[in-house]
């Protein structure tokens, strides 16, 4: 059962129950939708930029604990970050959840709690939906994103 405990860590359960930065961001200048229809996960990511910095970021939607907590922790992590930092962080997060490598906890901060996902390959799509949706918002893509 230890793998389950690694997956459903307290931090993840807490963010699932009380997601941070949840709700519509009226002043958003970027937004995108993500949808994993087979799971029934839906998410909208809202971003307000100030020059090259993410000044405000929110999300709304419904999904499993992993996708909700991932979206919540993503918004916490990215608020105030410059756009240059997003790509490397996403890459490091993806490597973490797919078990490709173990990036140092320093570079990932709170995102490191998702290391348990790598033992559950089927759940990688849950963990990365918010990030793919964020990327689509930044690229100003209009087609809904899916990780299925």
């Amino acid at each position: 059962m230890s793998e389950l405990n690694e997956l459903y860590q307290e931090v993840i359960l807490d963010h699932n129950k009380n997601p941070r930065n949840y709700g519509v961001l009226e002043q958003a200048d970027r937004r995108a939708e993500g949808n994993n229809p087979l799971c029934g996960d839906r998410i909208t990511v809202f971003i307000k930029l100030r020059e090259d910095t993410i000044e405000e970021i929110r999300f709304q939607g419904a999904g499993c604990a992993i996708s909700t907590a991932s979206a919540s922790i993503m918004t916490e992590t990215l608020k105030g970050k410059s756009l240059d930092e997003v790509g490397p962080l996403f890459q490091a997060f993806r490597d973490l959840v797919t078990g490709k490598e173990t990036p140092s906890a320093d570079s990932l901060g709170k995102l490191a709690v998702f290391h348990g996902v790598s033992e559950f390959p089927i759940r990688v799509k849950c963990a990365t939906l918010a990030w793919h949706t964020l990327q689509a918002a930044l690229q100003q893509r209009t087609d809904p994103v899916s990780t299925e």
Partner: protein
Amino acid sequence: MSRVQHWRRGQPTNPGAAVLDLEAVRSDFPILKQRVYGKPLVYLDNAASSQKPQVVIDAISQYYETTHANVHRGVHRLSQEATEAYEGARHVVRDFINAAESREIVFVRGTTEAINLIAHSYGCARVKPGDEILISTMEHHSNIVPWQLLCEARGASLQVAPIDDRGVLKLDEFRSLLGPRTRLVAITHVSNSLGTINPMHEIIALAHEQNVPVLVDGAQAVPHMPVDVQELDCDFYCFSSHKVFGPTGVGVLYGKAEWLEALPPYQGGGDMISSVSFEKTTFNVLPYKFEAGTPNIAGVIGLGAALEYLRRIDPDLIQAHEKRLLEHATESLNSIEGLRLIGTAPQKASVLSFVMEGIHPHDIGTIVDAEGIAVRTGHHCAQPVMHRFGVPATARASLAFYNTLEEIEALAAALQQVRKVFG
């Protein structure tokens, strides 16, 4: 083939009554001995696909080891034997669903292909702009999308009979949607996501009063109850081998001979013709007109073995056992705090869809999987049903006759574990 008697007499409390011999049944299915994460496999995903008895696995390997050749082709010995085995399975299917004639049994890839075949052939021949196809809210996507494609191509429209909060078809509304423009009723016998058993006799009688033929999606019915297509008087009946303890990749379309005779072919190719020239091709007789190309010979033989296996077990015992499983599971699940069953029709097969307050079905699926329990999570290819009940997805435990009361207990305990994890 020695394991025949799957029932035994006498229980202390009910002397003389025969009950299903579960131990014997379970020993017929080798996969049920499997352990998952070191725990006994509890397989509760039978509506997605059921497991296979040894006799089916043996029939397929034996066919490949001793008999394989193409069917309906050669004068050589193996081809004759393969043809006999393949056509023998057609007789078994005919007998199993009590079709009037073997030529009314068409082998296809599965229920989905059977429905597409009728959508295509019947649609080309009979559906015109302004016509209507009538389905219900509880259909699987495979009994929705082929009709949408047909309606779009022919300028027809899709009508949908609603269901109530228990997941029961609203028969009055169904009746009022039947009209002079209705060309076909396509409806499921048993709902894959809700478990609802539809009142097929009434549905078919109502449609026939208006001279409307009826296609029945029987994929979820055949594994649970005896089906008699003549007694039902349906025009078409479709089911999949892999849900009825046979191999994947093969299914059955039953059609009344008068319909199959009248309809044009679905696919062109070898086997479905009697003569071909560049000027004119004449089609083969039934059922070969609808079986273009080399069929799934081993799959059909495996299906025949599965149905013969089922036929040796008293269907009343299977139904009584499944009823007990369903009652026990309904009670156990209802006692779990925050759990809501989706689909509470009074007439129900052993399918339990549910949601748990504040917990996404995927998280339920992952946690019970760690206990070796296989349930399905998601929309079950029935998104309109999810929409109807206002949920993005459900978890679903679907039971077969080889499941046990202990396995239901294991599921209930695992769901308590889910509650604990999520606090």
